[in-house]
């Protein structure tokens, strides 16, 4: 009986490891011929492989899902194999990365500034592996001794502007809010951009828009914290929300929807990111969209061409990586028109000038 029990426990542990290990997926269509020359691997006999690590879930309806979809889209276009590990603890960043390095993956895709230390350590130990750090700092590629790290850096301030301009136009209480997951440079950049754009646009409309201090849930998965933060911020008068906290943002939207339902009309709004999430919740009026797949695709091309590393690839409104998603019918046509005007100003670099 004891042997049987030991066997059962062994099976259980194996199952646990399987659950932690993510999933490897072959290219969506192996027979598909790439449509352009750049999509064809330099070494036609080789199937390139990319692995993504993520501390939030890929099914979180926010950051994790958008980053995973970006990898999948880029991999499908370039004919790469993919795998991922999600919901991993901070203590396991490095272990997960080196596991994929040992398994012969060509590119490690780490979507977040918080992976910087683990990526730099692994990059030093695995000079033949390429590391793409989404939201990595400008200075990070230079810190990699083997020159095998590239930062993919969507402009955090512009992300904040895209949301802040609409928040400044839509707020009626003149109080808006921002929920952060962890205290990252990119999160702070988004908050500052959101705050300054809302204040500027509000002033153009004759309003004095106040942004509540940034709050941090210290987690990307605690949706209950999002609920409580949103309730507390609505108590302070906030009526437009933006966030950078993955599943925590989903919790905030739940609380906003509940308040709107109790009021009988939608008076408190949320702006989602980084993918177009219009329709996911009633309160979402627009999304700030980041085309991370383009950035990941550029990394894949560089790996195939042997030119990867040592650079920062920027994502901006100007090069099309950043944009605003579809606008809800809750936004009056007049405001939507003004918003498009501000977006045009951001694109031609005349916003707030």
């Amino acid at each position: 009986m004891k042997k049987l029990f030991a066997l059962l426990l062994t099976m259980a542990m194996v199952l646990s490891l399987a659950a932690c290990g993510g999933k490897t997926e072959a290219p969506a269509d192996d027979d598909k011929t790439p449509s352009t020359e750049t999509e064809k691997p330099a070494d036609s006999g080789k199937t390139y492989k990319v692995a993504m690590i993520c501390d939030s879930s890929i099914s979180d309806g926010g950051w994790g899902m958008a980053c995973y979809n970006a990898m999948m889209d880029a991999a499908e276009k370039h004919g790469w194999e993919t795998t991922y590990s999600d919901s991993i603890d901070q203590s396991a960043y490095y272990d997960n990365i080196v596991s994929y390095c040992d398994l012969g993956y060509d590119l490690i895709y780490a979507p977040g500034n918080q992976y910087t230390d683990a990526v730099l350590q692994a990059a030093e130990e695995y000079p033949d592996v390429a590391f793409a750090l989404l939201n990595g700092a400008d200075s990070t590629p230079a810190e990699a001794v083997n020159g095998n790290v590239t930062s993919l850096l969507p402009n955090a301030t512009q992300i904040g502007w895209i949301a802040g301009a609409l928040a400044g136009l839509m707020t009626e209480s003149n109080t808006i809010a921002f929920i952060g997951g962890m205290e990252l440079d990119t999160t702070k950049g988004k908050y500052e951009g959101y705050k300054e754009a809302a204040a500027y646009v509000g002033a153009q409309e004759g309003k004095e828009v106040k942004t509540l201090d940034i709050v941090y849930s210290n987690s990307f998965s605690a949706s209950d914290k999002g609920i409580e933060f949103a309730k507390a911020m609505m108590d302070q008068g906030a009526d437009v929300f933006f966030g950078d906290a993955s599943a925590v943002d989903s919790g905030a939207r739940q609380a906003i929807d509940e308040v709107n339902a109790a009021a009988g009309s939608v008076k408190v709004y949320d702006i989602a990111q980084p993918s177009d999430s219009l329709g996911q919740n009633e309160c979402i009026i627009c999304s700030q969209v980041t085309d991370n797949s383009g950035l990941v695709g550029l990394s894949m091309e560089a790996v195939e061409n042997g030119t990867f590393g040592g650079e920062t690839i920027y994502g901006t409104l100007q090069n099309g990586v950043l944009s605003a998603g579809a606008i809800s019918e809750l936004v009056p046509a007049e405001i939507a028109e003004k918003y498009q005007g501000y977006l045009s100003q951001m694109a031609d670099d005349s916003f707030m000038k």
Partner: protein
Amino acid sequence: MDWEFISNLLLASVRMATPLIFLALAELYSQRAGLVHIGLEGLAAIGSLVGFLVSLITGSPLLGVAAGAAVGILVNMIYAYATINLCAEQIVYGMAINIFAPALASFIYRVYFGAGSELVQVALMRSLAAILGVTPQSFLLKLLLDQPPMVYLAYALVLFTAVYFNRTKSGLNFKAVGEYPKASATLGINVIGVKYAASVICGALAGIGGAYLTTCYATTYTDGNVAGRGFIALAAVIFGRWSAGGVLLACLFFGFCDALQIRLQVGSYGIPYQFFQMIPYIATVVVLALIGMKKAGPKGVGKPYLREER
């Protein structure tokens, strides 16, 4: 700090304390039978996922809660068999549950929804006020009526537990097993039976605590949504000095501190947020220091029971 701030803070405290109450009661029943269980986090994780799935499939949050309880019992039988029949180390098996059950939950979620699926949301259990068709306006009515039925169940269970452990023969026998199992056996108490009953209750309550998160609190399931509540509940039992009333106060205290730090962060205006996030931990250290160790837990907790051993 006006009345609105205080009343909203108290309502948030109740919301945040409820899952802790279920988990802490689970630990209390287990420890009162001599089984220290550090695997509550894992039991809650699997209860949360199964509660979410059943609620999604059937459209009934109540069935979700029942399924959460059932899966909690099922998984806890691994722990029960290993620690009661095989006399294995309780801490080790509790930790094994903490590793195994969340991974199993994650595995089931991936199998069911596939990779990269969109955010799945379920309808939550309606509050008593919604069931009665009333809209409470005052703080007292919100506190008393604007809660899902599971909140009332949590408080009813606290009351039942207090009476059961202190006013019933069965409850005293239960406690005796946790204090001195050999002496209990000489009095004709079925020690193994009580320990298994405790494991069933512990598994059910921990599963309900997890299911509460996805059927009454948040509309989504995410890996890691239990967020350390299993360990906080463990601390609440020690903090509450192994009594039902004490456990309730401890859970309300932890819920209050967490709700307070969230609300103070929102109105901080320049004070670093880390300062507020320290509040629950500082408060715990201070209160534990003040309470001291005058009343210890059950004497037989953590020790294997070998019937044949002298």
